[in-house]
């Protein structure tokens, strides 16, 4: 796996003796990485459903990343603290992604889905659009039965295009 012969020079106490890796080994890692890349593309062409596809792609990418980090970046032979640093930052990444995604998914109910489009087209559109009414209507359509108070707002139509309030 590595050249154990010392590189040229007179080595003294306190010198940093580099860990030299054989070029054949490095080439082997490269070939493995290229094969894994091909595998990624092949796997992407097999449609397994979005979640599973992402899972497979990320798994292969993780294997590739591990190879690069461990052998090209020398983590395998380095002091363990360097690996700890990398793993800790990845853990924080997962924490950040995880909580944001969890929260995002949970509050989707209260998001007006086509808000952007409405905002954007409202400039060109004289009808006027009431975000609050649209949200209520959305909840009503989606069958959120608990909004007893919302049933009274029959005056708010969904999209009163003929309403001329001078927009």
């Amino acid at each position, binding site marked *: 796996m590595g050249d154990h012969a010392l590189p040229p020079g007179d080595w003294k106490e306190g010198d940093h003796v580099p860990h030299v890796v054989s070029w054949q080994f490095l080439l082997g890692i490269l070939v493995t990485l290229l094969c894994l890349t091909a595998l990624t593309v092949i796997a992407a062409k097999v449609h397994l459903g979005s979640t599973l596809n992402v899972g497979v792609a990320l798994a292969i990418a993780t294997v590739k990343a591990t190879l690069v980090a461990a052998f090209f970046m020398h983590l395998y032979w380095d002091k363990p*603290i360097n690996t700890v640093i990398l793993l800790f930052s990845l853990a924080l990444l997962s924490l950040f992604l995880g909580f944001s995604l969890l929260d*995002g998914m*949970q509050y989707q109910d209260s998001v007006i889905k086509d808000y952007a489009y409405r905002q954007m087209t409202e400039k060109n559109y004289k009808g006027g659009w009431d975000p609050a009414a649209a949200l209520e209507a959305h909840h009503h359509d989606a069958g959120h039965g608990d909004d007893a108070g919302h049933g009274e707002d029959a005056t708010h139509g969904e999209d009163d295009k003929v309403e001329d309030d001078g927009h």
Partner: protein
Amino acid sequence: MKDNYLTHSRGFLSWALTLDHKRIGLMYLVAVLSSFLVAGIMALMIRAEHLAPGADLVDADTYNRLMTLHGAIMVFLFIIPSIPGALGNFVLPIMLGAKDVAFPKLNLCSFYLWIVGALLAVGSIAAGGVDGGWTFYTPYSLQDGRIGVIGMTMGVFILGFSSIFTGLNFVVTIHRLRPPGMTWFRMPLFLWGIYATAILQILATPVIGITMLLLIAERVMGIGIFDPALGGDPVLFQHFFWFYSHPAVYIMILPGLAIISELIATFSHKHIFGYSFIAFSSVAIAVFSFLVWGHHMFTSGMSPLAAMIFSALTYSVSIPTAVKIFNWLATMYKGSISFQTPMLYALAFIFLFTIGGLTGIFLGSLSTDVHLHDTYFVVAHFHYVMMGGTVIAMLGGLHYWWPKMTGRMYSEFWGRIGCLLVFVGFNLTFFSQFLLGSLGMPRRYHTYAAEFQSIHVASSIGSFTLAAGLFITLFYLVHSLFRGAIAPANPWGGATLEWHCTSPPPHDNFSVAPTVGDPYDYSDLSYDPATGGWVSKAGAKA
């Protein structure tokens, strides 16, 4: 005075291109204290405006800009870099027994990045449009006409790198430059605190970096991730922002807590109680700080599930902090306490930070936060912990290490006056704001309902008292540079390594490698009235 780091070389370039951590620390000190002055004057203007309910001194736009800049300058230019940059840079290597930090050139680079970031941030004031609060919430910060936001966010980005490089330097220094005999558990607690801070600086700061970049990209390119009109999610911006900004507040307080450990031990002349607990609590605070950012967002529209999780986690953060406070009290118990200025600041810290921390609990509880969020209660809470905490601790540390840094003693009498005025003024200013907040006064408002005026007046009077105390402190400290008594090597009787070298230290910190012992063992020290300092009983001085 003998040849020391101040006299080692002369000329502008010898300071501008210095690689000496002590000089860099001094330059940082001047820099951060200048920003403190600028942002502090803005605060005084805000308080002056609030003497009356209406718009009298400034108009609404100006007020918004004042309060935004007060926050942004205080947070990014002053508090975050202050203790690590100024005191940490100076003290850390000496306290460790090393000759310098791990990467001296990177240290200088950090300082210049601060300068560039500061210029950008302050320059953006002129461009205008920076008026939505220091938190830059979208979509307001993305509106047309807010061109100054781009300058400010770039400034924050660069300041972030300054912070990262400082933290990186400190972590490597503490890991790799400890002298023989100094194991992790023989390090002074100040270094544990700086270490925990440095971890936060390295890991949390990049996220504000990318948040600022994405803000600029959203503004310029209209990506659509933060602006609802483009299909984006403003709550996501808050997640991004607070993922850094919550650990940031621990970056602010951890060094302060670390200083207090030193002050309490030295001025109680007694071994610190529960060393391991305090050391581990610093690291625990750092770890927990990553888990609680959502508590800034309870009323933003985040999901109740996430809110509950964050609220529960928020309570956990208070535990390591409480551990520290109890250990300090136990240290003082039956100690031989001397009430010199640094100790007065330390005692003030314990009082003020406890109040600040406890009021955080009100804010961490979901039901009460609904009422208190975005009111003056929050303002009072964070001023108690940031100013009553970090700034008081920084003042204490400054007074503690002033003789070491400058070789001069300041006037103890005026030191106590300054501390008293600061303490009284601070409490008057901010305790009133707890009352204002619970009564419903919202924060960041230019004008207010007349019923709040009397409390506002009290708060403003407090702020002027506080300012007086701070100006007095500035004056006597500067005065000491010219007329102060020459400082002995160990004026307070500390047992950590920085008291083994002369005041000020020589260029290389130690002429002889110091012998490492227990940093809180005071048994060997006795007061020598001739020099006005403490000396080792054995007679041998490093």
